[in-house]
């Protein structure tokens, strides 16, 4: 079987997420699909598997124009998608999961468990996986759950198997096992689309390789004819405008120091320090553990071990309340979920972390509180009719300014910003950078977690690159390039 996707385009509202993308796959080949987060890989695969419709272009299956109506239709054509987050039902048994929605029945609608177990065992045996079929899937390791997914798709006579970051949660042994299976599937003529960020694996397992960037398919190579450097360049290679206001830092004392921060299975032995006046960027791919490190520092999640010093004094932060007392502020990644009370007024959002400071004789001093809110809204340039407006009525950029106002108002000297400009329009972005400059000029230490490489390179003093829960490397921004960061972010080492 051969599939060709030609000039595929797709928009979500005004956003063009795919533009004239070309991609092909034929029987018995492993084709790797690479690109930064948001490059369009998932959208392309969702189109191929019938989960999304497309606006323009053609899909040819064995030369014949095809448009899958839905996921089931694609499945009938022999295309299977193993998602990164597996859609298993943890409480149901292995066999129940494998036959979900395609149960074998005897008369009167009764399930034929015996036959299903037989077939499930056979499918697993083919993969050399020795897994009992009666136990709940949730009790198995991620690697074994993946085997089950693969076995399930093989039972359906899959001809094209799409794997999204299949090794993300596997141990080395499990990865070796998975590669063995992939090679044997290849021999049986199955085509495999392999999505991964891990360079090493890509070069180990793939025959061809396509790089996507900003909704375009940049290049397709025979894996043996290319190298990591080329791929990294294709992944990040775009021009950076002089969009950033520039940094002119004056470092003071160390405001926050972390040593050996560990949370089992999430991040491991994280060490760093950030000075007064510094912007320390945390770069890395999605899921590398950056956000989790910050959440633990702020007391939202628990640390297993490690030490934190604020201005040279060791602190044991166990809750956000406690972090705020230590003058730490945290602009979370997801402002609608954790940053704002959407139905509440701007005023009620902005003064929340500081409200205890406005108590006079047991009651809230309304006037002082209102003056405080007005001052902050003016200082941050929040565009709204009145401070009584609901937070939900503002644009993304203005909402983000409201979240920032909260933490500027609470007097944070250490400010953690997780994706501070995500979903923010260009004008508001610039204002946010200007504000960060103003804050660091006054001595605030800023930690900026960002998935936007341009932003990291354009607006920070030092860059810590996180890979799989550890800091793979730290570089001064003036010495950093996109290639260097990408190399670190995909688990590589820098040469010098």
């Amino acid at each position, binding site marked *: 079987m051969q599939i060709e996707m030609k000039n595929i385009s797709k928009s979500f509202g005004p956003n063009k997420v795919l533009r004239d993308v070309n991609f092909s796959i034929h029987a018995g080949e492993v084709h790797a699909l690479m690109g930064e987060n948001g490059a369009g890989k998932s959208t392309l695969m969702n189109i191929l598997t019938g989960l999304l419709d497309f606006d323009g272009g053609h899909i040819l299956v064995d030369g014949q124009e095809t448009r899958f109506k839905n996921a089931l239709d694609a499945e009938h054509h022999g295309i299977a998608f193993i998602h990164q987050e597996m859609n298993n039902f943890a409480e149901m048994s292995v066999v129940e999961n494998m036959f979900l929605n395609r149960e074998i029945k005897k008369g009167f609608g009764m399930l034929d468990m015996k036959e299903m177990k037989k077939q499930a065992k056979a499918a697993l045996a083919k993969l050399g996986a020795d897994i009992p079929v009666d136990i709940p899937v949730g009790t198995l390791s991620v690697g074994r759950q993946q085997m089950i997914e693969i076995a399930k798709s093989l039972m359906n006579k899959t001809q094209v198997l799409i794997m999204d970051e299949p090794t993300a949660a596997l141990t080395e042994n499990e990865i070796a096992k998975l590669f063995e299976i992939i090679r044997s599937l290849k021999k049986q003529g199955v085509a495999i689309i392999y999505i991964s960020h891990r360079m090493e694996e890509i070069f180990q397992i793939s025959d061809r390789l396509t790089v996507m960037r900003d909704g375009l398919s940049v290049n397709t190579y025979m894996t043996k004819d290319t190298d990591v450097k080329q791929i990294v360049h294709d992944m990040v290679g775009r021009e950076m405008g002089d969009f950033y206001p520039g940094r002119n830092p004056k470092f003071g004392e160390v405001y926050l120091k972390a040593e050996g921060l560990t949370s089992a299975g999430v991040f491991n032995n994280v060490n760093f320090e950030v000075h007064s006046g510094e912007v320390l960027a945390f770069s890395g791919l999605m899921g590398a553990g950056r956000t989790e490190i910050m959440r633990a520092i702020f007391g939202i999640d628990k640390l297993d071990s490690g030490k934190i010093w604020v201005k040279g004094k060791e602190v044991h932060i166990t809750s956000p309340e406690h972090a705020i007392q230590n003058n730490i502020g945290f602009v979370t990644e997801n402002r609608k979920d954790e940053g704002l*009370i959407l139905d509440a007024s701007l005023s009620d959002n902005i003064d929340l972390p500081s*409200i205890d400071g406005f108590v006079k004789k047991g009651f809230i001093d309304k006037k002082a509180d209102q003056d405080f809110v007005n001052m902050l809204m003016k200082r941050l340039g929040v565009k709204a009719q009145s401070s009584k407006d609901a937070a939900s009525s503002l644009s993304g950029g203005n909402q983000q300014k409201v979240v920032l106002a909260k933490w500027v108002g*609470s007097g944070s000297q250490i400010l953690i910003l997780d994706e501070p400009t995500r979903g923010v329009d260009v004008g508001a972005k610039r204002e946010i950078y200007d504000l960060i400059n103003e804050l660091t000029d006054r001595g605030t230490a800023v930690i900026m977690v960002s998935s936007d490489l341009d932003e990291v390179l354009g607006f920070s003093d030092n860059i810590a690159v996180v890979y799989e829960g550890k800091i793979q490397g730290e570089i001064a921004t003036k010495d950093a390039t996109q290639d260097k960061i990408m190399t670190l972010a995909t688990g590589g080492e820098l040469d010098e």
Partner: protein
Amino acid sequence: MNNTETKRKFNVGEFYAKLGPLAALLILVILVSVLNSSFLNVNNIMNLLQQISVNALIAFGMQFVILTAGIDLSVGSILALSGAFAAQMILMGMPPLLAFLVGMIAGAIFGAFNGLLIAYGKAAPFIVTLATMAIFRGATYVLTNGNPITGPKMNSSFSFQFLGQGYLFGVPFQVYIMIVLYAIAYLLLHKTTFGRKTYALGGNEKAAFVAGVNTKKLLILIYTIAGFLSAVAGMILTSQLASAQPDAGTGYEMDAIAAVVLGGTSLAGGKGKMFGTLVGALIIGVLNNGMNLLGISSFYQQIVKGIVILIAVLLDRKQSQN
């Protein structure tokens, strides 16, 4: 998602949230007084206020709970248990005022127990308080042996009887208690950081937590308040009946929740005013009193009350859809 739509349609739900409770109360009062002239009689009004006090007190506590998107079904059982507790103390020779105090503290502890389970057990308030409703009621039956607790000390003691039976300047004493506690609840909710944090917790618990609100402590305090106010109502009722009844307060959670919802507070949390709850309690009171005056059978009364609550809930849904 349609940001371009600027035309604002008249929204029944939104209107009700703003002015509805007061308007509904007014219409109800006019309707009942037209249908039965003795409704506006001073004696009846005093009677009405007396009836309202107990429910209003419970509803003030329920208001805090519902603002956090929670619910407390155990209020009626707490009322009974703390009442029985105080009555037992009096029988054993404790001065009534002290016994009332002990009973109210007991109620606060029962409420704190709810709060602990909800905050630390991360259990759904509905289930926790459904369970403790049964536990506290069962404990009341154990304590009372299933019989009313009463005795000569209760029938003769002035300080015992004044709370639920006494009048001051022609107004039942319990009405003063209700007014004072309303004022405190109002100030607490609308003028202190405690109230602000309650709204924040109900509006978005995660965001409130990240902003430094000690959400666990707050939840425990709120359920403690609900328990305390139920116990105050329990003391009043015990005094009024000169006995602690094992089945006192059965079904009272219904009237309290109804008062809060009729007062325009959203069951989804984060929205609602204490004044609305006071009006809601008045609506329930007038409804009960009016139906009694009109001679409507208590069977039908239940149906009418249920329908009124349904209408209020549907209006609440309409408002939040906007």
